[in-house]
């Protein structure tokens, strides 16, 4: 299971990558592994505002479904439309495929998220 450095992680197994005031959000390798073969991704609408923890989309696999939450508050400025045609790319490259990009409204929230080391420990605990 891959966990990348320099990303923020949530307890719902989402990652955040920050570039300036933009936050790229996606799902972790752990999440895609547990969902299984992903068959469909429902994306949020551009310009929608969300608070941290809100559901911004839905990820479906053959036998499971999971809400996608945003770990940070902000406004959606872009969604990864390529996922509509190729949802399986989330299985192959979860850290290379963001779901959406949000303009951060409260960057301090990032402090509530885990770093790679903390997230590794969190996943190990979850597996037990």
């Amino acid at each position, binding site marked *: 299971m891959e966990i990348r450095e320099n990303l923020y992680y949530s307890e719902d197994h989402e990652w955040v990558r920050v570039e300036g005031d933009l936050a790229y959000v996606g799902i972790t390798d752990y999440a895609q592994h547990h969902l299984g*073969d992903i*068959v*469909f991704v429902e994306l949020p609408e551009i310009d929608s505002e969300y608070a941290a923890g809100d559901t911004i989309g839905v990820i*479906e696999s*053959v*036998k499971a479904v999971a809400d996608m939450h945003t770990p940070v508050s902000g406004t959606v400025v872009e969604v990864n439309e390529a996922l509509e045609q190729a949802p*399986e790319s989330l299985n192959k490259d979860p850290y290379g495929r963001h779901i959406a990009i949000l303009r951060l409204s409260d960057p301090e929230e990032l402090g509530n998220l885990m770093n790679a080391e903390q997230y590794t420990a969190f996943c190990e605990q979850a597996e037990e």
Partner: protein
Amino acid sequence: MSKLIFEKSVKGARSFTLPGSDLPDRVPEEIPADFLREEDPLLPEVGEVEAVRHYTELSRKSYGVDSGFYPLGSCTMKYNPKINEWAARLPGFAGLHPYQPEETVQGALELMYELQRMLCEITGMDAFTLQPAAGAHGEMTGAMIIKAYHNSRGDTKRTKMIVPDSAHGTNPATANMLGYKVIEVKSDERGLVDVEDLRSLMSDEIAGLMLTNPNTLGLFEENIREIAEIVHAAGGLLYYDGANANAIIGIARPGDMGFDVCHLNLHKTFATPHGGGGPGSGPIGVKGFLVDFLPVPVIEKSGERYRLSYDRPRSIGKIHAFYGNFGVMVKAYAYIKALGNTGLKEVACNAVLNANYLRTMLAGSYDIPYNRLCKHEFVASARKQKKETGVTALDVAKGLIDRGFHPPTVYFPLIVEEALMIEPTETETRERLDAFVEALLEIDREARENPERLKEAPHKAVIRRPDETAAARNPVLKWEPGK
């Protein structure tokens, strides 16, 4: 390669004809030109012989209770008596229009009225409606009745419904349809509702608790009276999911356990066939204080005459265009009449006997997480096999197909890993059960000796492990010519 009926179509082929028309030629037609269909619908063109062969072939690629043992947990795949099929097809039942004058359908209304009365006696409830077309439809009706009851008392802050973590998916989905927030109550280490957890969840915001008893692990909720007291004390109502009623008919009744609303599945407990997915029937029973909320119409009897009454101002309304699945009711009525006052208890006894027999015989080779006296079903687990050999519950299921059995329910309930939920029903012989045990033991041996073969199973079915991922990623939901 199985051809679709469309691929067997030959332009101009047909057997069906209408009688010659004796209408005068010059009857003016009514339909304006732009309301007419321009292009013909794409439908098959085949003669009768090919149609019959085609669907006969499809039947041979299907598997029913009549084909063999079908221990699908929580589905009660018992034998469907043939006399019941005959009865439902009698012209005096099958040929009735739902809006015929009441005096021309007295026999049908009497059958429904009597079926309701018998279901009341079987469940200990005070009144029944036969309108719901399926178990989930009944659940929805029951949840509506609960909501209507609270609303009628001005008690509108009850916005939450409790369901156990082992519940069927329909329970939370039903609660959601009614706008309830779903609260899960945990199971304890014995597989039963955690009474203390339930107590802590209760408040004046709880509309009720939806409970299956015996539960989806096949275990009787022994604390049911205490559970009922807790829910009632907080002003909530208790809903009985009748999916597992086959375990207790004639032995114990939801009405006596403290349930206020209950549904039954005529297609499970009362031997009406499942039809490959339906039609079923999910009647709802209620206690006296909820009778006013039942859907309309209600069948009333005055003197020797039966009538449909719509004059029920507090009713939730209608949930089916007509009166429910009458044809299914005929079969259930015939079944109850055949078994009578003594036969239903025999059903429960033998269903529980068969389940415990299988549980005992399998306990050595498969993990049984709650291995004690069960009711009509029990949940085994392939986790030992998975850990030791990599063979999963799904592989076990596919291995059973090669050995001529329908597999049990797999991966449910969610609280047991690698779950194999086994419900033999009362209509199986010991010989059948022994053969099933032998098949599962053989699969266990194969898992150790040749797991790859199981991973590739089934080897004897018409297809082998269809690609469900591809089906869901790029759904093909209809045939299109040339594709």
